[in-house]
């Protein structure tokens, strides 16, 4: 029983980890509380559903189209809204509020288009088949989710530390003024970061939509979980964030063993509050 819950937790945590990485790279680089990220997340799942189910486009193409659209949306938000606000000297509070407004706008737009029922992405029956490994039930889809999560985490680490772009991003993270002096264009970096972050949001959204479906509340819950993983994991610390996501998933699922399942989301916030109060720098020290 415990092991089953543990594995369930790892699966959920894998999605959380990707979520956290996406929000994390945006937040640590731009220091903007990108509330609208929750809507970007939702949009990916709903778009995939629209392409695949309503318009009968093959699944893989639907996923690709949806990811592209999500990346485009994230970059558009930065380019059309945030950049303009920064240009007129907006404070971070004002950026947060406009991001909140965007979230409300987009989220309700999705409600009008797709109503309140949960939407699920149909995946081939073969992947939904469950197998039993040592008495624990997982579906192939869930194994794929874990694999994708680990790969993305690895990719992020390699990208961040070994590539020129990754290093430029880290430079902007730690010292915005120096970065400009050294000739790195922060405008370009920001677009890059919103693109990557939104792509990651898209991936986690599509995976979740395949596994459990998406509904109008998914966006805000995803955002909150993303925020929790970034705070618990440490801003700018990719490994910390991924680890935090994983641990959060595990904690939630094991938690409902002892605590009634209705209190599940309180577990996440309980952990958050403990960290905010006692260890605001996060789980791991920044690399």
């Amino acid at each position, binding site marked *: 029983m415990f092991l089953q819950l543990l594995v369930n937790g790892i699966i959920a945590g894998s999605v959380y980890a990707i979520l956290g990485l996406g929000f994390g790279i945006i937040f640590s680089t731009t220091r903007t509380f990108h509330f609208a990220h929750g809507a970007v997340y939702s949009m990916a799942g709903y778009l995939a559903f629209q392409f695949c189910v309503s318009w009968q486009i093959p699944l893989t193409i639907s996923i690709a189209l949806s990811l592209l659209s999500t990346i485009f949306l994230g970059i558009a938000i930065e380019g059309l809204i945030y950049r303009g606000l920064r240009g007129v000297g907006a404070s971070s509070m004002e950026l947060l509020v406009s991001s909140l407004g965007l979230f409300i706008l987009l989220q309700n737009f999705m409600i009008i288009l797709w109503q309140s029922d949960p939407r699920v992405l149909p995946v081939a029956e073969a992947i939904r088949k469950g197998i039993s490994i040592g008495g624990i039930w997982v579906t192939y889809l869930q194994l794929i989710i874990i694999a994708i999560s680990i790969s993305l985490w690895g990719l992020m680490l390699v990208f961040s530390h070994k590539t020129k772009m990754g290093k430029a991003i880290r430079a902007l993270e730690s010292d915005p003024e120096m970065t400009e002096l050294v000739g790195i264009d922060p405008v370009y970096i920001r677009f890059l970061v919103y693109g990557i972050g939104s792509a990651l949001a898209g991936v986690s959204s599509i995976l979740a939509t395949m596994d459990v479906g998406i509904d109008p509340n998914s966006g805000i819950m995803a955002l909150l979980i993303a*925020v929790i993983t970034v705070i618990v994991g440490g801003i700018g610390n990719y490994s910390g964030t991924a680890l935090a996501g994983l641990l959060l998933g595990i904690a939630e699922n094991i938690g409902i063993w002892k605590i009634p399942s209705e209190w599940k989301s309180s577990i996440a*916030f309980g952990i*958050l509050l403990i960290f*905010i*109060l006692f260890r605001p720098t996060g789980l791991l020290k920044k690399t």
Partner: protein
Amino acid sequence: MDYIFYILILVEIYIILAVSLNLLMGFAGLISMAHAGFMAIGAYTTAILVTRLGVNFLLSIPLGVVMAVMVSAIVAIPSLRVKGEHYIIASFGLQIILYNILLNWVSLTNGPYGFSGIPRPQIFSYTFATYQSYLILASIITFVCVFLIWRVTNSRFGLILKGIREDEVAVLSIGKNVNRFKVITFIVGSSTAAVAGSLYATAISFIDPFCFTIHDSIFILAIVIIGGMGNIFGSVLGALLLISLPELLKFIHVSETVAAPLRQMIYGALLVILMRFRPQGLLPEYRARKGKG
């Protein structure tokens, strides 16, 4: 006509909510996303006391406030250690936890079923049965709440709050205990929201946890920002506009399922547009931001 009285009652409830949140946000700089949660404390206290224990509505109001004071006092002190964005997220967390309590502590709150048939207030033998009569009662209560908060903001206390919002270190350097001011303000603002909740419970006669979600907290926040942070009358105007104008939407024939999210889309768009062109809101506290060079 009856319908207009109903809308006015709602407007007044949200005036109380917006003015009290404005005290927190626009004066002390405390961004709370848990305001709907505190409203719920008042609403549920009234519902429980009136329907289960037969307590008079007017007595349930101060009891609701007492409950809210206790909760906000417990929360206020640890929250002092939390800075900036972390504070916003922590208040988010508080809202979710309060909501979960409403939903899951079934023996106390009836869980997802909530309370229905909450009776209208009664003084001696007079029952405020109609919206018209209830509006009079609500107006008195609303006026008292707004007046008291206005008094606070207009006093030396309020001036110091404005200082805290701008520069806490400077306020400390002139000998003021910033933490004390923040805690008191948080308690006052949050428990005033409970009064609005008590009014809501008896006005609508039916409450459940879904009336007090994070989205409702965000809505109150939107009213404060659109009306103008740091300006009490801005919150009054904001509540009036954001509650009554969407009613005009009813004259455009959109289906009910579209009307609600459409309304929200308008709020969202308003927030984005305001932040770009008039971030101080409708009634500013002081002049607009200066452009950066």
